[in-house]
Each structure stands twice: as structure tokens, then as C-alpha cells.
């Protein structure tokens, strides 16, 4: 039926996008960009490597094969779930490296997204409902400032205030160096202490986006006829807002939220650098500098995969919330 066809066609689309990206990634890193991982491994004249050793390394990493041969190998391995070995981490499996960096990013980004979403949407609703009020004007200016402020700059300001001046939070890192001696409770507190400033930075930076989308979408909805109708038939103002306006106004934000979660998993490179917080963003940066094809392929596979999956999820949620979509 309609619904099933909708679901299947969306999934097929997502899969095709995924394959296209898989192919694109290969050429992007190996063919279209300069440099190679071997040059990086032998960098700084420091590895003192003879041409023979260099050749041996090239063979070790399978880079002596033709581009087509490498491509087929890559596609085969990827579909078998084998992401290969990282050159930067001297042969460690990409999956292991990835899993080591993943939890930190999920925690940071998850906390920041959750809070920015709650605060941003709440502010957006309130602002849109009382358009032109003091609250609307101040929060509009405030969120525009936060939205346009570079994350690393905001992070540094917070760091200066809360760490350097007040000394409330550690200057950086993910855990204290005595983490292994802490009790569970102390450990949680320690992680929270380290998480606070980077998460606050990201929360503040993300709020603006949610706020602006929610506000404008609510304003659109408030101009609709059914709102007027609702008011005309004497529905309480609070119910007009909560049951009529917000429900419809949330629709565009569902897509936004799903998409931003997808992107956000890529981590926040600049914030991670400012707070020396080792997550996927930093890992990506390292992989690019090191020209680590295998790590880059794995990371981008994950990032694009995340965007596709959340996009798909958005489509389904949207369809669930708004039956008109299914029928279209």
C-alpha cells in the first residue's frame, strides 16, 4: 500500500545515496587530493627511510596496485565490514581507533544538542507567541549574537572566565589524570566537570538555530486560518498555542533536528581543539593532515551514513506526524 511503498522507496533512495558517497569518498581522498600517507609517515626527514623501505611501505599499504584495483579492494572490504588499518596509527584497525574516539563525541554532542534543543525550542515558541515583546526582542538579538559567534571564540571566552579567572573548571581534557583512582561517584563528577565548558559552548552555539527556525515556523502557523478558527470557537489561548500552533510549527523543526544530529556527530572540531577534548572532530583533522586514507574513508562513511540515516528517520517521523506527506 501507499505507506509501504513510501517506506521502501525512501530506503532504496538512502541506500543508493550511500553507495554513491562510498564511491565518491574513494576518489576524493585517493585521486583528487594531493599527497599520500607514505609521505606523511616518512615526514620531517625524520624517518630516515631509504627508497627501498619506502617502496616496502607502499606495498604494505597496498598502494602499489592500480587505482582500479585499489577501488575494487576497497569496495569489497567495505561491504564485508572491514574498514582496513590506519596508517597514522601504524596499522591499528580503523574500527578500533574509531570506537575509541566515538563515546567522547557522542557524550559532548548529545548533551549539547539536548539542551540547545530544549532551550532553543522553548525560547522560539515563547518568542513567536509573544512577538514584539521584550522577551522576543532580547532573545532575538541574543541568539543572533550566539549564532554568529565563532564556536572557538566563544569557547575561549568561557575558558578564560570559568577556568583561568574563576578556576571552577579544568582547563581542558576529558578526564583527570588520576581517573583510575576515583570512585564511581567521583568519576562521574570528574567527567561532568570536564564536559561542562565544551558542552556549554556548543549548547550556546546551537541554540540560535533551533530558536530561529522554531520562531519563524510558529509565526507562519499563527497566520493560518485554522488558528483564527480555533480562537473564534473559543479555544483557550494556551490550547491554541500548545494544541494547534506548536504541533504544526514543530514539523519543519523535526527535519532540522534530525539533520543537525546527523551533521553534529561529525563533532565540533574547533571546540574539541580549544578544550583539548579528544573526539571524532579531532580525529578527522588528524586523519586529513596525515592523509590516512583508511581512517578518512571510515570516518566519512560514518558521517555520511549518520546524515543519511537521520534524514531517513526525519522522513518517517515527518510522514508519521503529517499524513499528507505519505500520500504525496
Amino acid at each position, binding site marked *: 500500500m501507499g505507506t509501504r511503498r513510501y517506506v521502501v522507496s525512501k530506503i532504496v533512495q538512502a541506500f543508493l545515496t550511500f553507495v554513491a558517497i562510498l564511491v565518491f569518498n574513494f576518489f576524493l581522498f585517493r585521486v583528487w587530493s*594531493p*599527497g*599520500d600517507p607514505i*609521505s*606523511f609517515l*616518512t*615526514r*620531517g*626527514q*625524520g*624517518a*630516515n*627511510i*631509504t627508497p627501498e*623501505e619506502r617502496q616496502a611501505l607502499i606495498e*604494505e599499504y597496498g598502494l602499489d596496485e592500480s587505482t582500479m584495483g585499489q577501488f575494487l579492494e576497497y569496495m569489497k572490504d567495505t561491504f564485508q565490514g572491514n574498514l582496513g588499518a590506519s596508517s597514522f*596509527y*601504524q*596499522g*591499528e584497525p580503523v574500527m578500533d581507533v574509531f570506537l575509541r574516539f566515538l563515546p567522547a563525541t557522542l557524550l559532548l554532542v548529545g548533551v549539547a544538542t539536548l539542551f540547545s534543543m530544549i532551550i532553543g525550542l522553548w525560547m522560539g515558541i515563547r518568542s513567536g507567541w509573544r512577538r514584539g515583546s521584550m522577551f522576543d526582542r532580547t532573545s532575538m538579538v541574543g541568539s543572533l549574537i550566539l549564532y554568529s559567534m565563532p564556536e572557538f571564540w566563544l569557547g575561549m571566552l568561557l*575558558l578564560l572566565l570559568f*577556568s*583561568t579567572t*574563576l*578556576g*571552577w*573548571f*579544568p*582547563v*581542558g*581534557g*576529558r*578526564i*583527570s*589524570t*588520576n*581517573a*583510575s*583512582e*576515583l*570512585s564511581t*561517584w*567521583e568519576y562521574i*563528577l*570528574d567527567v*561532568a*566537570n570536564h564536559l*561542562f565548558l565544551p558542552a556549554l559552548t556548543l549548547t550556546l552555539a546551537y541554540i540560535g538555530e533551533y530558536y530561529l527556525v522554531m520562531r519563524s515556523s510558529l509565526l507562519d502557523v499563527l497566520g493560518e486560518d485554522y488558528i483564527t478558527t480555533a480562537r473564534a470557537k473559543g479555544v*483557550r*489561548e*494556551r490550547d491554541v498555542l500548545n494544541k494547534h500552533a506548536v504541533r504544526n510549527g514543530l514539523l519543519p523543526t523535526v527535519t532540522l533536528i534530525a539533520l543537525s544530529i546527523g551533521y553534529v556527530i561529525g563533532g565540533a572540531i574547533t571546540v*574539541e*581543539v*580549544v*578544550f*583539548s*577534548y*579528544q573526539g571524532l572532530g*579531532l580525529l578527522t583533522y588528524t586523519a586529513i*593532515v596525515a592523509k590516512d586514507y583508511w581512517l578518512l574513508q571510515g570516518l566519512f562513511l560514518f558521517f555520511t551514513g549518520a546524515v543519511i540515516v537521520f534524514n531517513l528517520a526525519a522522513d518517517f517521523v515527518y510522514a508519521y506526524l503529517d499524513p499528507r506527506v505519505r500520500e504525496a
Partner: protein
Amino acid sequence: MRRMVRVLALSLATAMLAAGVFVVQAAAQDESPAEDEKVTFTVGMVNDAITFNPMFMIETPEYATADLVYDTFLTWAQDDMSTAPNLAESWEQSEDGLTWTFDIREGITWHDGTPFTANDIAFTFNWIIDEGVGAYIDYLPFTDEIVATDDTTLVWTTTTPTSAPLYPPYIYIVPEHIFSGYADKADARKWKGFPDAVGTGPFELVEWRRGDFWRLEANPDYWGGAPVVDEFVFRVFQNEETMVQALQQGEIDFADEVPPSLFQSMEGDPNITLNEGRATTFIQMSFNQCTDEVDYCRDIGWNHHPATTDPQFRLAVEHAIDRQVLVDRIKLGYGTPGTTVILDPRWHHDPPNVVTHDPEEARRILEEAGYVDSDGDGVRETPGTGEPLELRFIVRTENPDTITAGEFISEWLRDVGIVTQTEALNDSKLTDTWYSNDWDMYIWGWGVEPDPNFQLSSYTTGQCGTWSDTCYSNPAYDELFSQSQSVETVEEREAAVAELQQMLYDDRPEIVLWYETYLQAYRSDRWTGFVQQPSEQGSILFQYGHYSDINITPISADGGSGAGSEDSGGIPAIVWIGLVGAVVVIGGVMLLRRRREDEDEA
């Protein structure tokens, strides 16, 4: 009225929750410092470590860590960096100069309890030679055979008389009983140096939270004396600014390789002592010297502006450069204008004929050599070919100092009629370009070892395509270098080393721009006992040998920063409680207000 009660109840609950949290937290904090007074010394590092396997390390923190875990065969003396006994106690050279016999220290055990013997040294050296370990193989030149004749005797025979075994080879000795388990180099590479790092050094690597920190525990049985501290922790930062802030906050005790501007910013901090150590690094500007005479250049092919191989041109360039300005503007004075390529005072040679900054002289030399601007466009032309003096100039994106230096130098060169096309490349791209011999000039740097042998070897013809910056080829230099390796007395060697430096200075395949001062900073309110190496203007940590490592002492009994996070732990606990409280109160108030609205509207 009911509402008032509800608000009150809610506030009370919040307060109780907060108090409870605080009490638990306070109790937890009370017990931890009291029960074990572990003394921890924490160091900040800007690079992460990838492997602690002594055979495959690349990054500074990896070497800094291996230095604590492993020992070298011989070492450098603390006061003057001369060769000093370490695992080998004494040595003698045979009459014919071909055989060196070393007495190896007795009674040393590996961290796992296995006795250490001369066999471990022989094994390590032979493994490096057999497997061709790039980082170390040049320390073992002319080797015919290295054998342990018994547990305390190592015999090293060479194919030509040499004092190379005394240089000292900067090689970490690994345990035979573990390393012999690896089939080959590729198999050994899989071990990342952790867990099961077994060395003979003053510390054992016990914990590695990759990307965050790693921890070493003192080896109380260290043959050179037990370290004063119980633990040595390395913490990774992503940038120098945070590292320096952490030092000022007391989260770490020591910051290494501090950039000049941050170093300056700590002046006047009563808790921090700054140390300006003697330079071990220089920044140089290299000229492509490839000709068909050199094998690698001929085989690979080469392409450079004809002027780079003209000595008069290079002399003119050197006259055009104002090194003092580079030091003052780029390093904020934390450096010295460079001359020769050997930095250690014991071997450094001061050339009597220092080339001064003199643009007028540069112009005169260029005129005389036939580089004349005949078409009046402000750029001189090469005699004969008429090719304009327009050269490609590469600087490094990884080192912003070189980019700034490149800007200054380009300006000065333009002033004397030479045009540069400057390009910033990352190191891997630059390495490719350098391998392909297709460049004119670049700026890069060298970290120079205390012993001059390795550095001087890199300028020999045979090093083109391996270590040579420029593919400089001078048969007289090659000859003198190989003589210098086989001289028998120290005086002879000193004379040869000085002459080699003078040759390089006069031929200038590269111009040494400046020497970088080694900037370190530590919390002097907590720590003492650092020893400088060398005694005058030396570095105070990460030395050749364990001079500071085992002597660092906390000033008060409860010193040490491992506690750093605990120090500041009290305030965040309150902040957390405050935050949780605020959230609860706000949530409660909103809930109440909403109820009230409902009631009002109903």
C-alpha cells in the same frame, strides 16, 4: 496559601538534595588525599603519542616517555655532555682500533624481574642492523660484529678504526626475552609499546588513556637510584595556550617547548619558574644543489634555478638577510642568529668570517658575478642565459615561524633585485617535492644531537635522497668526514669537526637562520631538584640521561599536582549543586505558574 506551601516544600527539598550531594562529595574528598600521599609529577605535551615501541617512535612525547622507561648503552654527562657510562661501565679500544670491548653493569633487572645482561644489548643492536631500523641504524656504522662474550662483556668489532661506538648510540636497549618473540619488523610494529613495556629505566609505563594522558610509576629498584616522585604523568593538550593555562592553574607541573609569546606571558608569575635552555634546534634556508654528478639527482632527475648552485649568489643572499631581525621579530628575542650547523658548545665552531647583514655588499656581489638588471624591471638576470632571478621559495604550513621568516626574506631579496615565488606547503607535500629534486629554496629546521657525527654525516654526497637537505656534494668534505669518524684522539676529532663546520659555512649549501632557545616552565612553588644539562644554560627536563627525572622533589609534603583536579574539585561540586538546584527551582516555579494559569483561566 496552598501554593505558598508547595513552593516552600519544593525549595526545602532542593536544599536538602543539594546538602546531601555536598556531604557525599565532601566525604569522598576527605578520604582520598589522606590515605595515600602519592607524589605525582604531571607534564603537559602538545602532541599525542601513537606508539611507545622504541623501534618505531616519531613524536617528541614518545621519545620523552621512552627516555623514562628504557636505558641507553652509554649516555651524555650532565655537566658537559661528554660521553658517560650508563649500562656500559667502562670500555677500551684495541691497538688496531678495530675492536671495542665494553664492561656491562651487573645486577640490573628488567621491570619484569628478568636479569639484564650484555646479551640484551647485543640483541638490540643486531636486531636494528638486521631489520634495518631507520631511526637507529646510522648509530652503528662500520659494524662488523657485535657480540656478548659473557653476561658482562660486549665486544664490538668494526671494519675500519672508528670511535663511533662512543658517540653514544642513542638507542633504547630492549629486552631480548620479549623482543625475540617477534618474527620480523612488521610483526614487531604491531606492538604499540603498551601494555607490557619492559625496560630498565627509572619508571614503568602502567596506564595509557590514549589521547588523554599516560602514567608512569617509579621503579624503586632503579640501578641509578629510586626516583623521588612516585608517579610521572604526561597529559595531552591540543594547543599550547591551554597547556600554559593548565600550568598557571596548577593542573600540570611542567610545560615543555613553550612558544615565546606564551613564555613571555608567564613572566612575573610568582609560582612559575621559566628556564631558557641552550638551543638544540636550528632553522635553515636550503638551496637546491643537485647536479648530474650526484647519483640520486641523476637517477631521479632534477630541476632548479641555475643560480642556486652559484656560490656568489648564495653569498649575496646571506648578506641580504638580517638574522637579528628574524630573532627579534619572530622569536621575540628567544633565539640567537645562527652560523654553523653544530649547536652543542662542546663541538660548536664559531666561524671567524661571519657574514654580516649588508644589502649594499649583496648588490655589489651580484653585480660582480654578472647578475645585472639589463631591462630595468627591478629584477636581475642570470649571466649567460638571461633568465631573470626569480626563484621558487617553499615555507612550511606546520611551522608558522617559517612563513613569517619567508616574508621577511622575500622582502630583503626583492630589495637587492631577486624575486621569490613563495609557497607554503605541509610537511608531507614538502617531502615529496624534496624527494623529486624539483625546487629552488626552502626553509626547514633540524633538531641536532649533542654529538656532531650524525648531523655532519647528512651533508655527505651519499646522503642525497636520504638525509641531505640540499644534495650538497663536495669530495673534500666527504673525505674529511670519513676521516673524522676514524680519528683516534678527541683533539683530532675536535679539529676535524670544526673544519667540517667551517667548510659548510663557507660553501653555504644552506644558510642557518637562527638557533631556537629551548623554553621550559615549571611550578616552582611545588617542585625543586631540577638539574641542568649541560650545567650552563641547560635544559631542566627531557635530557639525555635521567639527571632531573630521579631528582625532582616536591617542596611540601602534600605537593604534587596529580591532585590538581582535586584541588579545584571543591568549587565545581558547589557549582554543580547550584546548577542542579537552579534547574529544579526554575522547573518547579514554571510548573507552579502553569498550574496557576490553568486555574486562573478555568
